[in-house]
Structure formats: C-alpha cells, structure tokens
C-alpha cells in the first residue's frame, strides 16, 4: 500500500540506507493517537531502528491486539503486511502467521491491558513457545482506548478519579517473562529514545521471543485523583473545569541523556513519580540467576530496572523446531509439494481395514 516506493532513489538529498531506502519508506499512516502519547515515540524508534538496520519492510510483518497501543502498527512500516487482530489474542495470530514465510521478522505491539489482562494466557504461552518475534508491551497502567480504567500493571493502591482504588497485586511484565522462559527480556521508557531504539535493534536481531516492556505514559488518562485537578484552569481553581471529553495537550516526557548504571526520577503527567534504574554497562544479561537477582533487588528497592535484562541464544525458536525448509517459504509451496502423489491413495486405503 506504499505510495512512496520506487521513487525515493531518484529524489535528491534524501539519505538512503544500505538497502536503498529512505526513512520515509519506513513510515506509516499519520497517527491518530493523542499528541504526546508515549506510543508515538515508540513507533518512531521502530521506524528509526528498521531504517538503520537496513531491514527491507517487505521482510517484516506487524501484529497487534486492540487498544491505542495496538493501533500503532498502522503508524509505522506501511510497506509491511500487518494484522490488527483481537483484544488479547495477538500472540496466537502471530504464532500461526510466523509459519507462512519463516524468513520474515515480526514486530508485535500490544498494550498492558491487551497483554496482561485479557491477554495474560496467550502472553504466557507464546513466551513458552519461543516464537521468533519482537513483542513490545506499551505499558501505561491503564486502558487508554476505553478511557482510563485500571489495567493489571497499575500499582496497588493507585487511585483514579473515576475508577477508585486499585487493590490488586500488579503484574510485572519482566518478571512474567522470566517465569515463562522468554529468551530476550528488556525494559525501557518511551521517552528514552536512544535506549528504546537500541533495544529494538537488539530484539530484531534475536532468534526467539524478545519481550520489550516499555513504560509509555498515557497523557490523557494516567492521572490520579489529585493530579487531575491540575488540569483546571490554573492550579488555583480546585474544581474540574471540564468533563471527560476534553483531552488537554500535554508534552511527552523525554529523558534525554541517561547513562548506564544511573537512576533517574521521572515526574509523570499526573505529578506522581517513578524511578528508573539503568543497568550497568558491564551487566551480563546471559545469566538467568543474575537476571532473577537484579529483578528481585529492583523490586524491593522500588525502582524500575531498564535495559537488556536477560538474553539466551541457545534455545531453538518455534519455527526452528518445526524443521521448515531452509530458504523457502511454506506459503509458496506448489501443489506438487503439498499433495501426495496419486499412488498414495492406495496407501491411505490400505491403512484402513
């Protein structure tokens, strides 16, 4: 569906990558997400990573569930096939889709509601199977698209204006990934453009399931009760000025420079804060025990660890296990290859009695 293909090479002053494409060839439709939404910056980093890695867009498929986050595959890589599937069920669709042409790379985008609420079962099982794909959870602790209810990653005790207090134990995407044997586990923050891009690149190079838990603040609904007042017409007016239908324009939170091994306190749109801690440069992500330890430590310190937490390259991916032909796609096989020869019908009948 690309309109820009083919012509880029002839246009002057356009940076082309090694496969002869400009960054434009990696873009998608204009976003319909809120201005300032973290999900948009992640889309931008996907575009940048694919461009810089010289990925051919036709070699990628995009998958998602349902939600604001799950809309985003429409906003990058127009020239890639995409499937915006059902709420919480992207993992199964992706699993089946990977068999069509196993030379393709898959980028899947989901939300925290899509993945950890309705999608918890499929999320856990796709990790067990080590389906080779990049699985990005755009994690904002709420259901954006249905207007701000708690998702399962919301912290315990959080109070939202229209939702009351969240009493339930929060889901930690990274910990779930470790428990289910994901072979690539990382966390980042949407506003940390460099880290997000670097992790996407690494994930795209991984042969197995790569989980990226990216904290991606919802500018519109992740506002707790008190903070919501700050939208008032000047902070002095303590009454809400408007109803639900107004979405004030907010700036996205950008982190800028954020060196490895340091921690960073981030003020969210609602005035609450989270503390991010970037893994040390010399952290060794290949040890499962080490990964479990740093996760446990960061949980008791109440910081969110970012970076590549764990990677395992030995385990065969799902498609490896199925002994598919080298360099040939299942979906291009001919009748001659797929249908047994005529003589084989005798054999089938002989099997019966």
């Amino acid at each position, binding site marked *: *569906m*690309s309109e820009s*293909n*083919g012509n880029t090479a002839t246009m002057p002053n356009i940076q082309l990558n090694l496969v002869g494409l400009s960054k434009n060839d990696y873009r998608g*439709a204009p976003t319909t997400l809120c201005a300032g939404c973290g999900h948009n910056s992640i889309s931008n980093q996907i575009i940048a990573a694919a461009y810089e890695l010289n990925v051919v*867009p*036709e*070699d990628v*498929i*995009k998958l998602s569930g349902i939600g604001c986050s799950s809309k985003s*595959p*429409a906003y990058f890589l*127009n020239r890639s*096939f*995409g*499937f*915006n*599937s*059902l709420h919480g*069920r992207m*993992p*199964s*669709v*992706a*699993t*089946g*889709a*990977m*068999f*069509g*042409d196993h*030379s*393709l790379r898959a980028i899947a985008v989901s939300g925290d509601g899509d993945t950890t609420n309705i999608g918890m*079962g*499929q999320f856990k*099982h796709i990790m067990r*199977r080590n389906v080779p794909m990049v699985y990005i959870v755009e994690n904002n602790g709420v259901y954006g698209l249905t207007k701000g209810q708690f998702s399962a990653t919301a912290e315990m005790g959080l109070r939202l204006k229209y939702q009351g207090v969240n009493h339930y134990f929060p889901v930690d995407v990274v910990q779930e990934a470790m428990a289910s044997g994901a072979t690539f586990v990382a966390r980042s923050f949407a506003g940390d453009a460099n880290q997000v891009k670097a992790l996407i690149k690494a994930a795209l190079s991984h042969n197995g399931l790569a989980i990226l838990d990216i904290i991606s603040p919802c500018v519109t609904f992740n506002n707790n009760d008190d903070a919501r007042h700050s939208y008032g017409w000047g902070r002095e007016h303590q009454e809400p000025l408007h109803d639900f239908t107004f979405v004030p324009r907010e700036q996205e939170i950008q982190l800028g420079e954020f060196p490895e091994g340091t921690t960073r306190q981030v003020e969210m749109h609602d005035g609450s804060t989270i503390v991010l801690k970037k893994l040390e440069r010399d952290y060794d992500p290949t040890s499962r025990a080490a990964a479990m330890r740093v996760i446990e430590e960061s949980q008791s310190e109440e910081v969110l660890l970012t970076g590549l937490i764990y990677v395992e390259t030995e385990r065969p991916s799902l498609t490896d296990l*199925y*002994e*598919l*032909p*080298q360099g*040939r*796609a*299942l*979906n*291009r*096989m001919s*009748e001659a290859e*797929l*249908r*047994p020869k005529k003589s*084989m*019908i005798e*054999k*089938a*009948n002989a*099997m*019966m*009695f």
Partner: protein
Amino acid sequence: MTTPQAKEAKSKQKNEVVNDFSMTVATMNGSGSQTSNVTLLRALFKMGIPVSGKNLFPSNIQGLPTWYTIRVSKDGYLARRETHEVVVAMNADTFVADLASVVPGGAFFYGDHLKFEITRDDISVHSFPAKQFAKESGAPANLRDYVANMAYVGVLAQMLGIDMDKIREALDYHFDGKEKPIALNMSVIDASYAWSAANLKKTDPYRVEAMDKTSGFIMADGNTAGALGAIFGGVQFAAWYPITPASSFAESLSQNIAEFRDKEGQEGKTYAIVQAEDELAAIGMAVGAGWSGLRAVTSTSGPGISLMTEFAGLAYYAEIPVVVWDIQRVGPSTGLPTRTSQGDILSTHFLGHGDSEHILLLPGSAQECFEFGWRSFDISERVQSPVFVMSDLDLGMNQWMTKPFEYPDTPMDRGKILWEKDLEKLKDPWMRYKDVDGDGIAYRTAPGNRSAQSAWFARGTGHDEAAKYSERPEHWENTMDRLTRKFQTARQYLPEPVLETQKGAKVGVIAYGSADPAILEARDYLAADGLKVDYLRLRAVPFNDTVREFIASHDKTYVVEMNRDGQMYKLLVLEYPEMATKLGSIRKYDGLPLSALWVKESLQAEEQK
C-alpha cells in the same frame, strides 16, 4: 471346523438368522475390550459381511460401564438397531440390565466369575471361564482383565461361526504384524474357541456366514478419514486443543502426515502442527496461518466452537480462509462429551456477534470426511471465509464401512491470491477488498510477497476497498453487501446434495451427516409399508437450488435430525419462507445414533397427524 453344534445348526436351517443381528459386549472401560471388539468387527468385515461398530462409552478413563455393539447386516444396513440379539456381559455393574436387554430367543454369554442369578428362560444363556483362560495364559495379574476379554472373542467366534483365519488377520492388522502379541492373543482365543466347541451347545438361531458384500469397501472412522483428506488437501498448518470426540482428528493428522508428505530427499517439512493452550489460541493460530497464505485447520467440538466465536467473526469479516472441524457431541455446555449429536448447526452457522454467516459442510460417511478433508481448503481459499466441517462423534469415532477414499478429482484451488508476478500484470492498482469480478470475492496477497504494492493491513474494524481503516457508513454497508454477494457465489463451490428419488413419491425427507444410514434403511421399511419417500441428503449450508426444487416438488418434506430444536429445519424455513408450511421437523436428541425403526415410526406418526 465342523463342530457338533455347527452340524446341528445346519440341520435346523429354517430357523436360522444368518448375517442379520446385533451383538453387544458390555465391559468396563479401560479394560482393553476395544481390542477384542475391533478384532471381532474386522474379522466379520473380512468375511465379506457388512458390519458397523458403535462404542457407547462413558466420560471417564477407567472403571465405568461401556458397551460395544456390532451390527451384522447382509443387507448392508449400517445404522444402530434398538435390539440386541447376542449380548456378552463382562461387567458386574450392568449384568442385570444386560441380561434384560437380550431379545427373546437371543443369546447371552457371560464370564462365570460374575455370580448372578439367571432370571430368564426365553433366551440361550452360556457362561464361560474367562478368568481361567486369563490365568492359564500366563499373563501377569494386572493384565488378566485384558486377557479375559480376549476369551469372549474365541467363544463368540465358535458360537457364531466367525472364521478364525479372519480373526488372525484382524489381530495381525491391529498389532501391525508384530508376532508376539499376535501369538499371545491368538493363544487365548484358540483356547476359548476350543473350550466353547467342547462345552457349549448352540440353541439360538444367530450366526454368520461368509459372503461377498464388503469388497470395494473399507472400514474407517471419520476423524482418521478427515485427517487423511486434509493431508491430501495439502494442509500446511494445524492448531488444536484436545477435546472428546475431536482429539483423534488432530492426532491422526500428527501421526500420519509424515508418512504421506515427507518425501525421500526432501529438505524440510511442508507442514506444522501445534497443540495450542486452548481453543481461542487454536483458532487464533489457524487464522494467523490462513492470513499468511497457508492451508490452515483446527478441530474441536461444541465447547471449543463456543470459544472460537470471536475469531470466527474476525475471519468472516477480514475474509481469512480457515477450516474448522466440529466433531459434534451433545450440548449445551459440557453436556454429554461421549454421546453424539447434530446440535451445533444453528449456532455455528450464525457464529459471531453482528451479521455473520458461515459455510457448513456436512459429511455423511467416512469417505466423505476424507473428501471434505481436502475440499474444505479449496472452498475456504476460494471464498476467503471460514468453512466449518460438521461431523459428529458417531461418524468421527466409530468404525464405518465406507467406499474407499478417492484421490482428489480437481487440482488444488488456492483461490484469488496474487504473488509478485501476478501483481505486475495488473492494469489497475490492486486493492485488497475490491470486487473486481463482481462475484463478491476480492483478490488477496500474503505476507512474504516482496512486491512493494502487496502489503495490506488486516483488521476486524471497518475498512474500505483498500483495507484502510474507515468508519464511513457507506464503506461499512458496501463491504457487508459484498459479503452477502460472496455468499451467493459460494453456493456454486459447495457440494451438491445427494438425491435418492423414485417415481410417485409425495413425501420427502431431508437429512444430513451420520443420520444417513438410518434414513436409507427406514426408506426400505416405509416402502415395504407402502409409503414411498424421496430422500435428499444435504452436504452443505448455504443451500442451492436442488434443495428448493426438492421441497417444492413434494407435498411434505420432513427434516430428520439429531437435536432438540430442529436446527436444520430452521435454516431451511429461513431460506424458503414461502415453503415453510411444506416442511416438517423430526428430531431425536438422546445422544444415541438414530435407528431406522425410530425414523420410520416417527415419520409414519407425522404423516398420520
């Protein structure tokens, strides 16, 4: 093999009933009696006698009563009969009822370890020392139940006149030619045969005799047949979740596909089969695979169909080919997992919220399960829509005498799919959902197509012809109208109904699936009683004009089916409201296969109304 009884039997030939009775073996499940039962079934089949075998089993693994009924029918009738002429009782829990179930004049056999009073003198009763054979065989203690079951094979063979060579052939097949188990089992059968010849006196009229009515037939269960059909249909992807009575579809696929599809020197497989975590995931995977250009199938039963509802709607609206086998069992809910039914017709046809309708294929024999195994892919890829193959427990899991599987008579139809070269040839730019040909079916592409024009974005949300997101009223209506048109087109690709007509019949019967043998048999009885009945066997929904003409040309047409609500009757009323009053509904929903007697009597009762 001229035993004393055989001689005597020959002498009173007039009273004999040859090759025309049912025998039922009552055992406990998990006791291994299936091996004995299929051995008997196979031996009879090899003797050239038409047979059918039906297993009535409980929904647990071990220790509950189970019955296996073999009908032998010189006339080739394969339906369940309501009477039991020969009964073997091996289970104390049901002994009294089993004894009561024998028809007057019938024969009753039981293991002499069952100590019960014999309260009937209108039947022949024989006990045999089943446990003793087991003991003498030298089998270890924990296998003696199993061995005891082999004993009744010998006794029945001797008393009914089953050819021992055919028994050996059957064992040979069952144990895949492995000498030791064949010899071990055969030794028990030989011993009990000899014991029977020496000790039992034949007083009942039921016996078998070799004939030549099974050549040109095979015996098969529908699930294995369907799986083999899928293999010949070039299945590329299957995802499934275990459920009775569907598991054996996917398991046969797994167990047999390499044999047929892996070729000498071939590099890499041409298929993948995944056991999913549940049915939502199973159909999700199949839909993903269908989208990616593969021939994808999933198999399940009622509860799984319910869980597939949302994905069925997505596949319908996003127009993704996928084949779903529904091996129907008794519902609603978990219902009776080991009983048969045709109860998912209505809900599956309308599966999914919003306006949706689905193609149903209705196999009526194991051979047709094979055929629809491959044809369902052609239809699904041609129409770009899910296809549900509606089999049932009886057809799927029981052993049916059926015509041999036939090699597909048409090349694989991959439908309107475009690859790089096809796209190059197009004059107008390709659009995923544009009705270029006016038949409602648009052209699709699949991931991996490297043409920069080929990508499209699949979604369950409103879209325009270019597959772009749209909320515009006219886009929605246009798509939905095209889907209606597509379903009109679909009719031409669906299997035609099978007609059995005769001159002068004013009454018609419509049935489908595993109801077929009971209808065929009942027609003969009705004709004998003076009522000519024409018969149309449906093989697909939506219907085509043959059905309309059939109903129009009869005074009254009864739809006979195995569900409470007359589900197919309802679909016919909706299709032909102008002929609604010409349709009648006859239904049974007790979980048992239909019997011809019941069909005949129900139809006569309706006609007398």
